[in-house]
């Protein structure tokens, strides 16, 4: 129903008013529809940095409160995951099962404090839920338990499995002839699991260019530095040899991360691995690059120091 020009000046208002009245809500709905959501969500570099800082506070707080859980990995992950969720990922917070949404699998499930803090920031569930992390009955389990309403796409926790699962989602997209992308978060520790490489082969074999891996390379595993325990380098060479497109970035540089995510979307015929050089515990000086902070909650003093350094 279009506005019809009328003969006189004064009557024009009477024609246009109902048009605006009828069409404004539809335009508003369209702008808020999933189709344009990704454009709305694109945050600036400084906004992304600020979000990551804030989420570090949430991460350390929830682990401290639970007196249990992992924060070292989440601190090395949070920058890349913030870039993913607040710059690139296409989804609808009001419709978590929107069939054309981009998918994300947190293959290293122990870094779930990072994922939960992001999902809460997006509004998928109330912030107060974070303080029930790892408590009896909480939907925020110690390692992710699938809950689509919260944006948790899959149960993970045992390293090595998520990459294959994400490949499955990407194959499903192909069968459905849909254009959504499937991202997964991998770690160097998780890549010690042989199954990871099975998945890496599969993604390349099936030319899953709708797949993108964010690979957290912090050189830390539980028993020490990976270079001492079980060396996995050279990682970028390995992915290249496995026929992936590889982009190497500083995992704490938002500009590089966003550029890499953009580049990944342009690659045809190959999946993309964004190899992110990171520091375990990044953001709080006393934690940085120390294996002991992989899976031990902070003491009260450490927690205080962390909050101070994070500006909370």
């Amino acid at each position, binding site marked *: 129903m279009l506005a019809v020009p009328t003969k006189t000046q004064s009557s024009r208002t009477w024609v246009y008013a109902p048009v605006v009245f009828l069409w404004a809500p539809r335009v508003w709905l369209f702008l808020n529809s999933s189709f344009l959501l990704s454009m709305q969500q694109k945050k600036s570099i400084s906004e992304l940095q600020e979000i990551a800082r804030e989420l570090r506070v949430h991460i350390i707080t929830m682990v401290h409160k639970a007196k249990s859980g992992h924060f070292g990995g989440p601190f090395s992950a949070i920058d890349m995951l913030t870039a993913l969720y607040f710059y690139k990922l296409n989804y609808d917070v009001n419709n978590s099962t929107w069939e054309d949404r981009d998918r994300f699998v947190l293959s290293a499930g122990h870094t779930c404090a990072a994922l939960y803090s992001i999902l809460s920031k997006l509004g998928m569930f109330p912030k107060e839920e974070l303080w029930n992390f790892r408590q009896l009955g909480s939907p925020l389990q110690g390692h992710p338990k699938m809950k689509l309403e919260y944006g948790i796409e899959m149960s993970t926790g045992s390293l090595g499995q998520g990459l*294959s699962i994400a490949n*499955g*989602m*990407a194959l*499903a997209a192909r*069968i459905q002839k849909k254009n959504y992308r499937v991202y997964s978060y991998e770690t160097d520790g998780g890549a010690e699991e042989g*199954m990871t490489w099975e998945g890496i082969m599969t993604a390349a074999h099936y030319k899953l260019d709708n797949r993108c891996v964010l690979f957290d390379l912090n050189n830390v595993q539980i028993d020490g530095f990976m270079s001492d325990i079980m060396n996995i380098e050279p990682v970028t060479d390995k992915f290249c040899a496995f026929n992936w497109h590889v982009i190497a970035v500083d995992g704490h540089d938002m500009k590089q991360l966003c550029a890499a995510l953009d580049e990944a979307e342009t690659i045809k015929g190959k999946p993309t691995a964004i190899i992110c050089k990171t520091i375990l515990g990044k953001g709080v000086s006393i934690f940085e690059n120390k294996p002991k902070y992989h899976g031990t909650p902070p003491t009260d003093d450490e927690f205080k120091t962390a909050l101070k350094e994070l500006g909370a």
Partner: protein
Amino acid sequence: MSEQPLNIATRSAYGKKLAELGKTHPEIVVLDADLSGSTKTNIFAEKFPERFFNVGVAEQDLMGTAAGIAQSGFTVFASTFTMFATGRAWEIVRQSIVYPHMNVKICSSHAGITVGEDGASHQIIEDIALMRVIPTMKVLVPADAHQTMSMMDFLVNDKGPAFMRLGRADVPQVFDSSYQFKMGKGDVLREGKDVCLFTTGFVTRATLDAAELLASRGVSASVVCLGSIKPMDEDLIVNMAGRHDTLFSVEEHNVLAGFGSAIAEVLCEKRPSRLYRLGMQDEFGQSAPHPILLKHYKLDAQGIAESVLKKLK
């Protein structure tokens, strides 16, 4: 005119039925790990190549990928040899398929000693145990082609993870085409009064034949086929226990933690009884043509009848 008996392997019935279901169920996706010729998923693959994926010799990847496809709304059938599906990939089945309740049907072939000449490395006799102890997992073991196909009618409409154990070797049919499988329900194949023989899978035919042999020796045996191992027909088990002095379980599987043990768990609580478990007596298999193996491990009709009589002495 009576129907032709369908004396084919359960894996063959699976492959045939899967391709038929593929026509009317566009939501079915099939995965294999380089064994589609043996598991018979190749029949589906040929007809519906866009819904079939081979991951090569990577059974953990098989199960993880299956989980991802199922998460996106498809009904996935994942096949390989049972040793690798339930052994090598056990943890992935547990973590990525069953725990998040993914709609993946693990229909793996070459279970038990009837694998034959490939030998012990390929003769899994622990799979029923491995799968049934995963919380909420369903475990189905068909005795013949007809039961396989009827089970698949159930599986395709059931939303959630399940394991179906298939065999390599041809097996004479036990049921006919009118058979309708019911989840959690067993089938009384023969009514007797002295002993009750609980059986499942490939050895069902031999157990029935053993019952005939026992009859000629003055022992009247009932034969109950339990294709649904989890959930199990507890009422039928208790009922049978009430009507027979001695019970036997017969399985192409280790007697530890498998089919017989599942029955024992029910009996202990609901109707304590004497149950003898026939099967692989906690030993590995070996290479030989499968009829020889069955005879060697006393899982042919003669062997079963002899074992029963021995226990009854």
